[in-house]
Each structure stands twice: as structure tokens, then as C-alpha cells.
């Protein structure tokens, strides 16, 4: 009951939040919402133990596919977004054949190479990808009316609500997957792939499944981004963006579902409040690199470990007080 109340309260805060922000802050809120989906999907990928450097490019695949499908074929934007997610998942499936012949460090390098090849294709082929200039004038979300609220996508606030709904549903689906026997098998593959295999788990298939699912959600986030900013090019999905995703994930920690999300939110807020105000915006990659190193050195279990510590202390306190009450 208290959980439900907390959830409702949290939802109300998320709905009210943009009204307390300036226009430019609202825009940042939209990016933050989209990035939450990126890092949450990245964690889904890391559940089976493999870390990829191609995740942002896969996100770009979703962005390009959705942009092209709506622009060239006139497909209704929300449908194009789903198809973009599907395209990203299919590309990941194709990539899984060469990539999952590798493990660990080699997988990391292989995923980076695969991503760069895709980016080269975008640059090289003006038709249909628009070359280095990318795609401009991507169709915006068409406005619609749900009775209680009119979505006018000229306003960041409307796009924020739309993105919030899409990201919320996606997170819920990912959460359900992780809590299911499929999620348990992902963890098993991560911690002891030999024992998992001896228990009849097709380890390769499960690694592929996690990769494909994560890529689908990454593609969806890319599509959300494309139809918001209206312009994408190969540099929108370069390695600098990947470093941001890695930093959010590592600083947040990957042991829990909320860890990477926490990292993304905290660092974005820090970035916007501290760096931008202080005029350090240009140095963001440098500072992110520094934060990543510092957090690996001094907080190897991520921000989530602080939350977990606080939660278990609170539970311990509760138990203690509960016991003293019982003895009294």
C-alpha cells in the first residue's frame, strides 16, 4: 500500500516537474528522459556480462530508420518509431553472429568496430542516409488530443509527457523481464556461464536475446530523439556519446535496475546546474572522464551502493526497533 502511494507520488512529481522549469530546462528534461531509456537498455545488455561500445550507434540505427520511414514512406510517426526499434533489434541480431564469437575484451572491441562500420555507411551513402550532413527536417510527432490533455508537440512539455509514457512503459517491460525466469537466466549466464550451460541453458542464445532486446529499446530511444530534435547525423551517435552512456552506467552501478538511471539523472543534473552555469560546458567530456575514473577508484560499486547502504540501514533500524517493542 505504501509502495503504491510512493509510486503515485513519484508519478505526480514527474508530471508536475516541467511546470517548475524554464523552457530550456524543459528541453533538457526531454533529453534526460530519453537518456534514461538508453542507460536502462544498456544495463539489460550488460546483464549477461558483455559490455558493448556500439550501443549508441544501435540507438542511431533506430533514429535513422524511424526518421527515414516517416519521411520517405510517410509512415505515421509513432508506428515509424516502433519500426525503428524493430530495425535496431534486427541489426543487432545480424551483428550477434560475428560478435558473439567473441567474449569480454574482444567483444568490446568488436562492438566498437561494428558501430564504426555502421557510422561509415551513414557517411558514405548520401542515399538514403544523407551522408555526413545526415537527415534534416525529420517529421515531428503529429499533435493529438486525448481528451484531458492536448499534445502540442511544438512544446517540449508535450514531448516530455509523451517520452515519459514511452520510457515508463519500456522500463516496466524491462523490469518484468528481469524479474522473470528469463532474467534469472541472464544473471546465471553472467555469473557462471559454464554452470548455466551444464544446466541446459543455451548461453549463446540468451546472450543474443539480451543483446537484441537491449538494442530494440535503444533503437526506440533513438527514434524518440530523432523526432524531437528533427536533425540527426553520424556525429549525433559518435563515441563521445558512448562515453557519456558508459559514465552514467559506471557511476550509477549495474547491480540494480535503478543504478544506471541514478547515474544518468545525477550526472545530468550536475552537468546542467554546475557545469553550464559555471561555463564549463565545453569541458564536459574531460570532466566526465575524470568523474568516471574517480568513481571507479573511490566508489567502485556505484551510486546505487550508497542507496542500498541507506536502505539496509533503515531496514536494520526498523528490525531493531521492532524487536525492542516486542520485548517491552
Amino acid at each position, binding site marked *: 500500500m505504501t509502495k503504491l502511494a510512493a509510486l503515485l507520488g513519484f508519478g505526480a512529481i514527474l508530471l508536475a516537474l516541467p511546470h517548475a522549469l524554464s523552457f530550456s530546462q524543459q528541453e533538457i528534461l526531454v533529453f534526460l528522459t530519453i537518456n534514461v531509456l538508453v542507460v536502462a537498455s544498456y544495463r539489460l545488455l550488460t546483464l549477461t556480462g558483455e559490455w558493448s561500445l556500439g550501443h549508441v550507434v544501435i540507438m542511431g540505427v533506430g533514429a535513422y530508420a524511424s526518421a527515414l520511414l516517416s519521411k520517405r514512406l510517410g509512415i505515421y510517426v509513432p508506428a515509424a518509431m516502433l519500426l525503428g526499434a524493430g530495425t535496431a533489434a534486427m541489426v543487432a541480431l545480424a551483428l550477434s553472429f560475428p560478435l558473439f564469437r567473441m567474449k569480454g575484451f574482444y567483444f568490446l572491441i568488436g562492438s566498437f568496430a561494428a558501430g564504426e562500420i555502421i557510422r561509415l555507411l551513414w557517411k558514405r551513402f548520401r542515399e538514403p542516409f544523407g551522408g555526413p550532413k545526415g537527415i534534416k527536417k525529420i517529421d515531428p510527432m503529429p499533435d493529438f488530443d486525448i481528451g484531458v490533455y492536448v499534445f502540442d508537440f511544438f512544446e517540449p512539455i508535450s514531448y516530455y509527457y509523451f517520452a515519459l509514457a514511452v520510457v515508463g512503459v519500456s522500463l516496466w517491460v524491462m523490469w518484468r*523481464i528481469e524479474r522473470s525466469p*528469463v532474467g534469472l*537466466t541472464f544473471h546465471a549466464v553472467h555469473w557462471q556461464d559454464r554452470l*548455466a550451460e551444464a*544446466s*541446459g541453458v*543455451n548461453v549463446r542464445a540468451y546472450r543474443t536475446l539480451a543483446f537484441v532486446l537491449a538494442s530494440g529499446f535503444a533503437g526506440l530511444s533513438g527514434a524518440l530523439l530523432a523526432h524531437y530534435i528533427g536533425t540527426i547525423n553520424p556525429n549525433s551517435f559518435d563515441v563521445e556519446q558512448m562515453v557519456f552512456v558508459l559514465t552514467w552506467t559506471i557511476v550509477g552501478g549495474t547491480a540494480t535496475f535503478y543504478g544506471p538511471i541514478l547515474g544518468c539523472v545525477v550526472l545530468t543534473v550536475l552537468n546542467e546546474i554546475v557545469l553550464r552555469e559555471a561555463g564549463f560546458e565545453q569541458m564536459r567530456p574531460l570532466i566526465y572522464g575524470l568523474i568516471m575514473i574517480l568513481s571507479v577508484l573511490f566508489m567502485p560499486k556505484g551510486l546505487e551502493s550508497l542507496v542500498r547502504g541507506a536502505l539496509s540501514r533503515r531496514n536494520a533500524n526498523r528490525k531493531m526497533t521492532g524487536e525492542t517493542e516486542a520485548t517491552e
Partner: protein
Amino acid sequence: MAPPILEIDELTMRFGGLTAIDRLSFEVERGAIHGLIGPNGAGKTTTFNVVSGFYKPAGGEVRLRGETISGLRMHEVARRGVVRTFQHSTLFAELSVLENALVGTHMSFPPNIFAAMAGVDKANRRAARARAEEALDFFGLSRLADELAGDLPHGHQRALGMAVALAARPDVVLLDEPFTGMNPEETRRMMELMVKIRNTGVTILLVEHDMHAIMGLCDRITCMSFGRLLAEGNPQEIRHHPDVIEAYLGGARHVA
């Protein structure tokens, strides 16, 4: 006589220049507890690794109910009914004891992602959980179900390894030194459980250095040394076999 359930036929395995298994042949009868013994480095674990599909043999083959299984991948061998444990406690240390056992039920209750998302796999999950709890109960681990597997004492970890394997309801189970790290009392109880398992129709292939346990449990024993078959027979025959005595006295610390 019924045909053997498992046939190891002229099996050879090499690591670079080292021949870890050298044209090894033996058969395991259905429903038997079959011991595989030999001094350290004889090739017992390597034999398990080949039979379970972790390695592909350099020569020879392994047959299960007459069907060749050597060369299949480990999960494919498992799906045909051959499940193994590992010599060094190999568990999902970061998962709970119950979750470890649940992974063992993977083949009997395969997860389905669509059913999971739609929430229509409740019956499947309940059945898997019941099976896992039953396996934990069998090995006396029920009250530890919520502990992290990595936090268990060594003897309990060995038992959990077997619970994970048995939760899969295999036809043949390969146990690699299941009694290491157990005190005599635990070993004795574990031996009783082995007999119980065998009586449910499971065939057990057992690698163990504890000669008391081996002699007390096995219907038949294969002894190997330097990758080769040294002797085969019932416990009485093996105990008094001159080559076996020689191999143990000549090469290793584990004397019966």
C-alpha cells in the same frame, strides 16, 4: 542384459603435446553407481569435460543410449539427460540458494519471454519453484534458501551443486569429487542420499578420492592412470588389483 546407458569408446583428448585421455573405453550400466578413480592428474575431470560436451575429443566417441553425443555442445548434452557438477564448487555465488536451484530447473520449465511479459507463466514458475524447493529439501538446504550461495560453508556448497544438477531430473549425473570439504558425518549422510538418488533410477558416474565412500557406494569401478584405463571391476576386485595398488602407491598421496 540391458544395453549400457553410457559408452565411452576409444576416447582421446589432447592438450598440445599432452595426451590427457588416451583411448579410454568403458561402459556405464543403466541405474548403476559407477566410480571413476585414479591418481591426481589421471584425466578424470577431463573425461567428464569431454562427456559433458565442454571439450570436443581428439578421437573416439561417447554414446548415450547408443546415440553419439561427443561433439555436441554442453547444453545439448544436458538436454539429452546428462548433467554434471564441477570439481571446484562452481555455483552462482551472487545468487540465492533458491535461485541456484531454479536455474537447475531450466530444462524442465523453459522460460518463455512472451509469457513472462504477459504474466501468463504463473503455473510454470510455481512448478519450477516447487521442483527447486524439493531439490533443496532433499539435500537439507531448505532453511538456507534465501542465503547467497557464495556465503555457504564449503560442504553446503557441494551439496547445492548437486541440488542444482538433480533439480534438472537427469538420467545420468556426473559428480566430480562431491565429498571434498565434507566431514565424515556429512559424507555418510551424502552417501545415503546417493543411494536414494540411484534408487529413483538415476545413473551416477562418480569421481571421488574418498576410497571409503567409493568402495561403499559403487557397483562398478573404473580406474585410470595417465589417461589410460588401468583396471575395471567391482570394489572387491579393484581394492586388491595389483596395478591399482601400484598406481596409487607409486604416484599419489591418496591411498585407500
